[in-house]
């Protein structure tokens, strides 16, 4: 049986323990996949990632495909088994929590996924989907459920009338709002957002980002925002964590990382992302040429710095030893030449 929930609808209670401690804390997380049916060596999807999400802050997790960013999100949500390391939520170790233990945390920790078309059962009404967790996990009264539903729909800018309709009747942007509402009805304090705007058009992405920003203000939410788009992360997040090949290569305040990267990979990412202004873009292009060809066809090394084969600054040492995260000013980077790279600035 789950514990009865008499919490008021307004705000979840503060957890026991140190209020200044981070809400979510990931320590030395490793996730290995074994490809089914083959006796191949396991794939290291995540290799020793640590990160904190302090209360009321938003952390962006950035990386390209294969960087392990979505795996980290799944591991935190308990959708992917963790090989080693710990995930702590509000002081409780939830690394290997059972479903019933997770149910208790689910009230505070929720998720929004990338594909707004796949994240709702097409045969169930929107109202039923949004309130599913409320009805099955919290056993609230009808009126309370109704109130929470209306408030959540209002918060994401959807009319109350939409509860009776089916997901098929909504556009991608509207469904993503509804997916956010589903997370909101639980009155969470923390939401894992896994590429929530990647499938959306630019104007719709802007709407969703505004909804997320607004909720952060009004409900005091914290986000772990997973994205491949540095610009979006920079816009929404306080801090940025850059992943490459399953490990953190750089972390720090979002504007510092985005403006003066200390890791060559972050620099390459920034230089590769084109900007709308043709003149600025030309300047970036030249920077990128100077930064070297990031997409060389050579295979990724399995010792030393994993980025060395693509890195224009690589020295002999990079091939033998793997650098660890070390402080560089306000941020930290896993590069032997971090200071130099930062010195160079983004627009050398």
């Amino acid at each position: 049986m789950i514990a009865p929930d008499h919490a008021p609808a307004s705000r979840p209670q503060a957890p026991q323990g140190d209020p200044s401690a981070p809400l979510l804390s990931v320590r030395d997380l490793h996730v290995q996949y074994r490809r089914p049916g083959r006796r191949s060596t396991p794939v290291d999807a995540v290799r020793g990632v640590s990160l904190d999400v302090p209360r009321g802050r938003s952390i962006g997790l950035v990386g390209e495909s294969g960087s392990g960013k979505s795996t980290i999100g799944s591991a935190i949500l308990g959708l992917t088994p963790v090989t080693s390391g710990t995930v702590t939520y509000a002081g409780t170790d939830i690394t290997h929590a059972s479903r019933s233990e997770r149910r208790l945390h689910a009230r505070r920790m929720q998720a929004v996924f990338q594909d707004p078309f796949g994240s709702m059962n097409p045969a169930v009404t929107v109202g039923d989907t949004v309130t599913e967790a409320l009805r099955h996990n919290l056993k609230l009264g009808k009126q309370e459920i109704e109130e929470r539903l209306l408030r959540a729909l209002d918060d994401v800018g959807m009319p109350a009338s939409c509860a009776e309709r089916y997901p098929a009747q909504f556009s991608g942007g509207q469904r993503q709002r509804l997916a956010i509402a589903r997370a909101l009805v639980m009155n969470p304090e923390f939401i894992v957002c896994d590429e929530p705007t990647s499938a959306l058009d630019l104007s719709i992405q802007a709407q969703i980002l505004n909804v997320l920003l607004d909720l952060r203000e009004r409900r005091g939410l914290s986000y772990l925002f997973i994205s491949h788009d540095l610009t979006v992360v920079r816009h929404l997040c306080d801090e940025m964590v850059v992943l490459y090949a399953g490990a953190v290569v750089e972390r720090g305040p979002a504007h510092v990382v985005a403006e003066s990267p200390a890791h060559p990979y972050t620099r390459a990412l920034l230089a590769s992302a084109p900007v709308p202004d043709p003149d600025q873009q030309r300047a970036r292009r030249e920077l990128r040429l100077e930064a070297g060809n990031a997409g060389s066809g050579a295979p990724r090394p399995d010792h030393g710095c994993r980025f060395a084969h693509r890195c224009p600054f690589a020295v002999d040492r990079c091939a033998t030893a793997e650098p660890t995260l070390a402080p560089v000013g306000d941020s930290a980077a896993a590069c032997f030449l971090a200071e130099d790279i930062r010195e160079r600035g983004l627009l050398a």
Partner: protein
Amino acid sequence: MTTTASSRGFLRSLLSKPMSAASLIVLAIIVIATVFAGVLAPYEPDAQDLTAALQGPSSAHWLGTGELGRDVLSRMMYGGRVTLIAALIAGATFILAGVPAGMLAGYRGGRFDQVVLKTADLVFAVPVMIVLLVVLAIFPGNEFAAMAVFGLLGAPGLARVVRSATLGIRNELYVKAAVASGIRDRVIVLRHVLPRVSGTILVQASVFTAGAVLMETGLGFLGLGTQNASWGSLVAEASRNLGIHPWLLIPSGAIIITFIMSVNLLADGVRDTLAERYTPPAAKVRAPRGGAKANAGASATAEATPVAGGADNAGAARASAAADPHALLSVRSLTVTLPIDGVPTDIIRDVSFDIQPGEAMGLVGESGSGKTMTALSILGLLPAGGRITSGSVTVEGTDVATMNKAALRRLRGGRIGWISQDPISSLDPSFTVGWQVAEAVRSHRPMSRRAAWQHALTLLEKVKLPDVERVAKSYPHQLSGGMAQRVGIAAALAADPVLVIADEPTTALDVTVQADILALLRDLQADGLGVLLITHNWGVLADLCDRAAVMYAGQVVETADLRALVHGPEHPYTAALLACDPHQARPGAPLPALDGAVPPPPQWPQGCHFQSRCPFVKDDCRTGAIALADGSDSSRAVRCHHPLTRQEVTL
């Protein structure tokens, strides 16, 4: 509550299909006639009338008589009991053994899953008929035992189907979302998995039961089943009397075929009804994207005759000008119609633009703006039913509408290359990529296979692939997205085209790879290749293009030199689309987002298509078509009654 409501809805939509309703009625009649044979049958099954043996239909014997003058109809009704009970036993065994195993294997995975899969693999190779003969050799005449074994032999197959359906649903995002919000497995299985798998189970079980009827009648025909009347023994009786009384074949075959067909039809109906409930709605909401629905008749547009412009493009001053004969590509007042829900609907309206030799021009817009459809209509590759209803597409001075099939084929790939969005799925998985590039070469130039292969290697080098010999011998699934896109570009360059159309060529790629592909396209353009780039990304546009046309809801709303467009948009939509790019915004501040969404083609309003979302809308925007007219200088054009000035934009 919800389940009963939805199952009622299910029955209603099932019965609304005439075939399903008819099958259900036929099955009901057969079952009632069989179950109540004792009351309904005109004779006892074994009642003999030696004076009337082997006779055709008559008023006394509706379906005639068989050996010993036994009434065929009565024997058919009584015989149905044997056959149907046997089928029911097989079906029940099939479900009871297969469903739990399959669901458990699919939902839990792990070792049990492996066992189920392996068993299914092994049982698949067992010759069913001979095993049943073994059973009957050992238990003579015990048809029910044989049928239970038949069900058991089928069960691993069902388990496999149920398992993969369950696994598929388990991996659906909405199940993940439910798991992430802490919903119990029991609830997930009952609410999300079972309703969706039940259709599959029902379909599999009915098809299997139909197979059991075939099997039972076969055994009956061989005389290995029970000695009582059954549908199979009726056929056996017919076969003994083929020479003298072939009529007997008709009723016995008809009842078996009718029954099985009804079961299969009903199963089809169930499957379709369920599919409707679970169809992702994307296709319903939007116009079909790209050529996804294209079929063999796709080149139909080649025959379409341009019609004089309708009311909508009457006033398009610039657009109605003659095509530019010196341009590589000149599109004039192009209007394209496609059936949506059976209604012919404009999906592109009055689109005009030119590309000069060596120029890189961008078509930028959100999904649903008609960018891809515009590009497809240039090559005459619209989806089935799509037609150019007015306007023209002129390539190097020749109107595409006047080209015959052969000329159109030379145009595609020969003069205009095509680079598509998803590089891997754009290559045929069954051929090496070198072969595919060589095929593109040979489609336009007669040369030997060896020469074409050599030329393909040169092309692969031209797109800067490393180790071309090895890459050429690879299959698409062995390449990364970036390499596959280079192969796609090489194939597009096979016949030295003057223009390439690149439809979102980097959308599926990581940013670092995107930058490499854009650099390659830029190099090719520098060598004199014209480029039409379709994109929704302002940055990609800025990286490659000199000029751009902004599309919204099937129309070009603004055309200008890119620098002028970005720094001083004149159409409110251009301004809004630029503003909601977070590049321009102060971090953490609300973005100046546009409310609402692009209206789908059937809902385009009178007047300006952007009116419902435009902050500057005035009364005259809601009436009459708006032409693409000169902007603030003659190098640009804008489709707006109240174009923005520079002051308004900076506000």
